[in-house]
């Protein structure tokens, strides 16, 4: 079942390649149908995964791939992967519908790349073989690079190049570390007949590494994840990439790609290098807190709405890192929850900004003002999603942030206090944005005749808002699924550092 979900978009992409490229309708409906089908097929995964079942990782499927190197095709999901897979598949149909207007040329290529990207992202969340994970991890960058480079704004080539080089600068050292771990296992397997040399994550997690090895590998893996998150000071690629990317690209980037970093820390860095993590926590905390506040301050002075949302992303992802590295159950639960919430709200915000942009072809605040009068439905959606993003109780952002602060406070009250100030700043700049765009008098003549959003746009925002409210009101079903995995991560960490 997992493989089916994983390869359906890939298959869809190949099918789209066969469609005549002038057949716009078929391509768009085809891409939409593939993403919807993938989503529908991934819903049963939620039921099929039993939280607290016999094994943490379920629905496993595996086959030999390159046996002479010990590389296997192995996929399985635990609660965290499950939720992230659902997030990807939930967002994708929305992205396709959202891109119908904004992608005006070469749409076949665009949807092919988008579907490829979906498969690669799913693969990275499902992989249980380190080599397979690495393949997907790097492959993911390629379609995104083309999406930014071909369909982006004016300095798109610069942004695409920066994105590619930055992310690969992270993942190439990771490759060395991946090989190192494998060779280490192979070395041990030669002495111990019970071990076999493979890239399987279970086997690699069982390696006993010296503190120095742990540190070097943690740096190699961590750099890659930190760039993806992105953590201060590795965040500089993000505002450029977001601003220049076409909106669907921004939605995927913010909604899913950034989550890869947090996921990587949880799945690889913490379980495999616990002792190094223990020593690194203060530095990570410092960077995370600094990033939260710094990005919020930078967001305050932005004049471009999209750039503002991009910086708010950096700030929010800082919270995720904070929660994860609290290394207690509340913190990690909060981190994962915040990843999901952030994917929905930020994705939604990018879509909303794009709707404005389509109408007025500018993203400067000063061009707007008072448009709530002309676009009441749009304003309502915008305000709800903004409130979700700043963590209003009853909406999804609140649950994540609350859990993160709960977890952080136990570890370091000072960090929690600083992080809360970041959230307050967040509320400030987001609400100021809302005020500047929607309220007051209409100052520009162009804004007097703006039309409100149409049926398609409402249809694409509705599921988002629904989920934002649902996740805010009944977080139980989501937290329940990730609970055993979170517990396992915390327990293995605690036992490794000797408490």
């Amino acid at each position, binding site marked *: 079942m997992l493989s089916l979900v994983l390869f359906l978009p890939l298959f869809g992409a190949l099918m789209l390649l066969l469609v005549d490229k002038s057949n716009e309708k078929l391509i768009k409906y085809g891409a939409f149908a593939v993403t919807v089908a993938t989503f529908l097929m991934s819903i049963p995964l939620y039921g099929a995964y039993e939280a607290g079942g016999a094994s943490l990782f379920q629905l496993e499927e595996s086959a030999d791939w390159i046996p002479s190197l010990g590389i296997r095709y192995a996929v399985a999901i635990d609660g965290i992967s499950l939720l992230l897979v659902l997030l990807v598949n939930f967002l994708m149909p929305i992205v396709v519908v959202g891109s119908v207007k904004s992608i005006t040329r070469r749409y076949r290529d665009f949807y092919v790349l988008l579907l490829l990207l979906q498969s690669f992202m799913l693969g990275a969340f499902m992989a249980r073989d380190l080599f397979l994970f690495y393949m997907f991890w*790097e492959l993911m960058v390629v379609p995104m690079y083309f999406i930014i*480079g071909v369909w982006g704004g004016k300095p*798109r080539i610069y942004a695409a190049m920066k994105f590619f080089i930055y992310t690969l600068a992270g993942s190439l050292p990771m490759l*060395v570390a991946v090989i190192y771990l494998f060779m280490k296992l192979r070395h041990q397997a030669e002495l111990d007949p019970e071990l076999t040399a493979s890239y399987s994550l279970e086997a690699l997690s069982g390696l006993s590494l010296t503190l120095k090895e742990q540190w070097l590998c943690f740096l190699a893996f961590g750099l890659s994840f930190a760039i993806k998150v992105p953590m201060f000071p590795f965040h500089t690629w993000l505002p450029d990439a977001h601003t220049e990317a076409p909106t669907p690209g921004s939605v995927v980037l913010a909604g899913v790609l950034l989550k890869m970093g947090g996921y990587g820390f949880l799945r690889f860095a913490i379980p495999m290098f616990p002792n190094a993590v223990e020593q690194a926590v203060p530095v990570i905390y410092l960077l995370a807190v600094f990033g939260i506040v710094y990005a919020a301050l930078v967001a305050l002075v932005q004049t471009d709405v999209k750039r503002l949302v991009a910086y708010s992303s950096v700030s929010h992802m800082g919270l995720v890192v904070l929660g994860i590295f609290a290394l207690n159950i509340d913190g990690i639960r909060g981190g994962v929850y915040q990843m999901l919430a952030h994917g929905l709200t930020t994705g939604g915000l990018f879509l909303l900004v794009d709707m404005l942009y389509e109408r007025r072809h500018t993203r400067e605040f000063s061009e707007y003002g008072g448009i709530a009068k002309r676009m009441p439905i749009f304003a309502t959606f915008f305000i709800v999603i903004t409130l979700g993003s700043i963590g209003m109780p009853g909406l999804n952002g609140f649950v994540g942030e609350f859990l993160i602060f709960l977890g952080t406070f136990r570890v370091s009250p000072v960090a929690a206090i600083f992080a809360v100030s970041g959230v307050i700043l967040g509320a400030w700049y987001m609400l100021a944005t809302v005020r500047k765009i929607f309220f007051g008098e209409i100052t520009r003549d162009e804004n007097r005749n703006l039309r409100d959003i149409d049926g398609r746009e409402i249809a694409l925002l509705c599921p988002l808002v629904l989920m934002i409210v649902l996740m805010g009101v009944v977080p139980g079903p989501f937290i329940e699924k990730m609970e055993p995995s979170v517990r396992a991560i915390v327990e293995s960490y605690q036992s490794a550092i000797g408490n």
Partner: protein
Amino acid sequence: MDWTDIRGIAPLLWPLAAALGILAMADKRRTGSKPMTPMLAIVGLLGSLFAIWRLWPEEEGTSLFRGAIVLDGFGLFLGIIVAVCSLATILLSIDYLKRREKNLGEFYVLVLFAAIGMMLMGMSRNFVTILFGLEVMSISLYVLAGLFRERSPSAEASMKYFLTGSFATGLLVFGMGMAYGATGSLDLGGIGIQQAGGNPSPLLVLGLGFMLAGLAFKVAAVPFHMWLPDVYEGAPTTVTGFMAAGVKIAAFGAIIRVFAEVYQNDSESLRSTLWWMSVGTMTIGNVAALAQRSVKRMLAYSSIAHAGYLLLAIVVMQGRLDTATGYLGFDSSQSVEGILYYLLAYGIATVGAFGILAYLERDAGGGLDFDDLAGLKGKQPLLAMALTVFMLSLAGIPGTAGFIGKYGVFAAAVEAAQTTGDESFMLLAVLGILNSLVGLYYYLRVPIQLYAKDLPEAREAEVMPARPPAFRFVVATSLIATLWLGFGPDVMNFGVEPAMQLVKSALESLN
């Protein structure tokens, strides 16, 4: 010499027969070639592949011609890559040469001779045969580089290649002479037996150093790389692809043979020389490639960088040789395997990429600037895709053959670092990785031009030359092969076997 010997060199005899046939058919009065000529050359190379296929399963490790040539999986594997690359070169060149009214019969003869020389170098186990193979290859290539002799860059390329190449051969022969003086043997296996366990004489180490310099000239390793950019740029483009792929295959085959068998004892000076050579080669190749405006020249410099990555695996192969239990410590084949896969991936992508450049360029061998590729996606979508995939493969992005090759080479370094505890090997792997990051930048400039830039208006109406079936076939096959090898069929097993065979035959020669 008996029947087994003849049968064993059948992969060389097929192209030889084809070449002689073409020469016999040649007609002085005609300026172009007969349609039969390329056909005959193709048959010769297919025959060579067929012969390799026949020899593959049973006859491994046999010594032919009293040990001058050895029939093992290693040499045959290199032979396959050489034959495939030559075949692709010929198919690509037919149309390329016709358009430039240079479709001469000699061209095919020279490509066949060069291929014979390359194959022979991979199969040799004797200084004289190595030298013979090298000269057959080099002399053919000197002429091929100057095929467009009316153009001064091409004539310059030929002359430059000839002068530096002869100098390199001189160094090689000098080194071989010293090795002979030190050991009294020209046979790699024979020297290997003599050296087992003892300290190498300084004369032998010096000889090896000279031989290394000679071979390094051929693969253009720093500091012997100066000739390469001009030669690659001046040579006809399909020939450039052939040189980049074929010479590397042959020269690295010889380097592995010499170093695996003769160089068994620790010589710190030689190893650190190789270490610096590898680092210098990748760094200088990559950095210089960054600054190029011409795509052909960029690929020329990047070919230097690739030689650096391959040398990296040689450094650590040697490391395993001397640090474990001396000569017999060569028990794991990670680096040989990595090199073989790398050469395969590199050969396919390089020949394919140069083939596309040859098709796209407007004047003979004049090369192509990055700007000339702008927006080509609109005019030639499939070619643009193929060129992009070749670039990604050369850059080593997962999903392409180049990634698995690069993986193999770096894995060899990491493994050596782990088994020997020598941290300089780890440092080498890290430097290699950082270098491939630099490489990424210039390789990506190609897809950016193809996809993200718009076609200049002046070129919209331009009619592209027809794409002949042979050209389409080669591009499509290389594209499929690059992707297929990248998604990892278990070709590694295929690579392990020949490499292990090399070890086995080395061991047998000791007993």
